[in-house]
């Protein structure tokens, strides 16, 4: 199944839209790994900057994706859903 360039791009964009929340969740769970390190203290300010930074990146990524994704996501753009 080979799609022309535009259709192919669009499919990869929907892939990106699917993967985004997963990446977001992983990034937001990262602080839990830091706190595993013995004796390490995370500052509220530093942690806050990290969390809000990830948050901002998610907003921007979602903005870019929502602009480019097919707006009325139907079967045609997306293939059969499972």
């Amino acid at each position, binding site marked *: 199944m080979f799609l022309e360039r535009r259709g192919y791009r669009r499919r990869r964009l929907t892939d990106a839209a699917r993967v985004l929340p997963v990446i977001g969740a992983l990034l937001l769970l990262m*602080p839990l790994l830091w706190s595993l390190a013995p004796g390490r203290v995370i500052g509220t300010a530093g942690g806050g900057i990290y969390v809000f930074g990830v948050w901002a990146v998610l907003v921007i990524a979602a903005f870019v994706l929502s602009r480019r994704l097919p707006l009325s996501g139907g079967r045609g753009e997306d293939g059969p859903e499972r």
Partner: protein
Amino acid sequence: MIGYNILVAVCLAYVALLFAVAFAAERRAKRGALGWLRSPLVYTLSLSIYCTAWTFYGAVGYAVNSGLEFVTIYLGPTLVMVGWWWLLRKLVRIGRSQRITSIADLISSRYGKSNLLGVLVTLLAVIGSTPYIALQLQSVTLSFSVFAGEGRLLADFDTLDSTALAVAAGLTLFTILFGTRTLDANEKHHGVVTAIALEAVVKLFALLAVGVFVVWGVAGGPVDIAQRIAASEIAEWRPAPGRWAGLIFLSAAAFLCLPRMFQVMVVENSDERHVAVASWAFPLYVFLMSLFVIPIAVVGLELLPGGNPDLYVLTVPLSQDRDGLAMLSFLGGFSSATSMVIVAAIALSTMVSNHIVMPIWLHLRRDSASMSGDVRDLVITARRMSIAGVLLLGYLYFHFSGGSTALAAIGLISFAGVVQVLPSLLGGLFWRGASRGGAAAGLVIGFGVWAYTLFLPSFGETFVMTGLMLDAGPFGIDWLRPHALFGLEGMDPVVHSVFWSMLLNSGAFILVSLLAFPGPLERLQGAQFVNVYEHSSSARGWAPGGAEAEDLLIMAQRIIGADEAQALFQREAERQGSAGFLPDTTPDFIETLERELAGSVGAATAHAMVGQITGGASVSVQDLMAVADETAQIMEHTSQLEAQREELFRTARQLREANEKLTAVSIQKDAFLGQISHELRTPMTSIRAFSEILMAGGPMSDADRRRFTRIIHDEAIRLTRLLDDLLDLSVLEAGQVSLNWQEIDLHSVIDRAVAAAGVREARGGMRILRAPDRERESLVTDADRLAQVFINLIANAGKYCDAEQPELRIEVAARDDALRIDFVDNGAGIAKADQSMIFEKFSRLTDNSRAGGAGLGLAICREIIDRLGGSIAYVPGQGGAAFRVMLPRAGMQDAA
């Protein structure tokens, strides 16, 4: 300092503004000039009812207690919105295509329009939302008390109580006015949505204003704030793994399952594309809402170390004598509380009226429910009563709980309650095997575990849950302790409850679904939900026929109003190609109608009401199987027709062939008659001519007379022979000949034939070459008839062989069960074109005189050999004329 009266005046003015905005929006919508009323921006802002007074005030208090953990409440929804492609898109598509009115309706509709599930989810939502509504009342009254008490935190309870009652009454009025103007939940509440969008702007603006004031007014900018954070009580952040991840999950789940969120996200959605915009705009909104929470908390801790951290958003500006900012902040909190209560009341009242009131009413008036009584009035009244009831419940909860519990705790408990819907919701959207029984089991078990481990203990020691029971478990059973179920100790109570309730809920849901066998309607709905992208236009449903279109029209008028109902029926009739208001009650039409009605009263009720008229309240397995049977019968019928058609085709071909044969036979018969006449006529002519000469008497010699007499005699013999042959042939052809079967010796038959044929060399005839040893074969046959054939063949050879020294070879070859006798002469043979003709009657290849026969010889031979069970054929390429006779050794007497 702002006095209590000014506060009330401002508050009333603000409420009046909201009324005006809602009213203007309704009027605008009525004129059809929706414009920005239905923009993605308004949609996004309406989603902000997620940020209630709990988050407006409570987030700061939460931050004071647990530092950064408060963001989990926003991170969950952020992930859900960012991942809209997975879930929200599908949810909104289903909500629109199935005309879903609430989350209870979604669950009920998905699982076969089950009323049981509708009731379960409604009860769950009411129980889960009541504390939350109480929480909003509490926060509003608390904020009033801040002003009333001139900074004192707690005014006396009676004042708070009466304030709460007034707020509840005002909210009831607003919600009833703008929330129940139309019955159809799918007809959007433009007024309400616009008002809450305005409130969303107010609360964001208020919180940002306080945040900016704190960072740049009180502190000296971001760097200073960072230093102050580092120096504060909450400088260190130790994310507890269970709570951090657990609360992100909980808030994400609640964002999907909260009835009010479902209302604005799915039911009020007017365009799927709005979801795409909200996917980044809503995360941005909550990002901004939480941006200044930590700074406000830190500054509040510095300025008001002993104050109630839940009210820092108000008290910090007040303490700096910023009355205007405090006022704005108060309005922000007021907005948060009111918008949430309004939408929650609308959502809950829709659920209560559609899933509890309507089914009861239908049950009471089982016979005539659809035909009498104005359903519209009933539903609207039910909804208004439900709104009042929901708010009353919230007020009562507030009244009796004494308004003492920390805000955050109630919020999370409420969340944990409503997320019990999640397994049924996700399972229903993505798994076709999810069944009604599974959903019911999961809901009941999850709800029970939640109530046991979190909700009931939250009241402290009560008569339901004694202190002893909390500490040691019921009846001293250690592993049933509410906060340490199955010995799982040391966990945060909320996370503990969410963990167990979701685990057992999902487990029961999956297990029962795996074991259950869903009904046909359930499977139909399941397919439509799970594969919503494949058939957005709805798959072809099935409804029993026989409904009266007129009855349906009467019922529809009572539910969706006369004009709308008539328009719908007219449209459908037109689509079916008929004029007037009464379309045929096809399954298609019934399904469309049911879906329209579902937009007003919910899928289960609409299904039941239509079912009352159409006769069958539900599709039974037998019905579906009957349909399947019909299909099978039609298919069978078709294949039968196919077979019949082929048979007809075959018969026609046979008939055509038979006709051709008959025509050929007819021609043959004509030719035969012509031949016969000719053959009879020739000797007759000469007999008549010579007998006339003899009769004339005249002078003639004896020799002449004798010659003439001989000719007459010869011709008479020839006639006799011809007639004998004809008789012989007709007897043979008619199958009337009787054969004398006996075992004979082939050699003697050939001897006889050669002798009778009269072609011996000695008499100047042809040489006959034989191999007597090979002729000594015995067979069972009719010797006379066989000799007749041989005589004919030998005589023919004698007549037609044109060689100088004619020879005839008679060769016999024996096989196990048959004998082959060849008669081969050394003449010119028979031309290829004539070979197929020689066995026909009257086929004489050369002129008449030489043959001396009528041309029936070979025809008779073929008939005889046929009767004897053998075959005779001309064999080309043998150096002359060659006839081959095949005879079975055993003869044919058994078969004959």
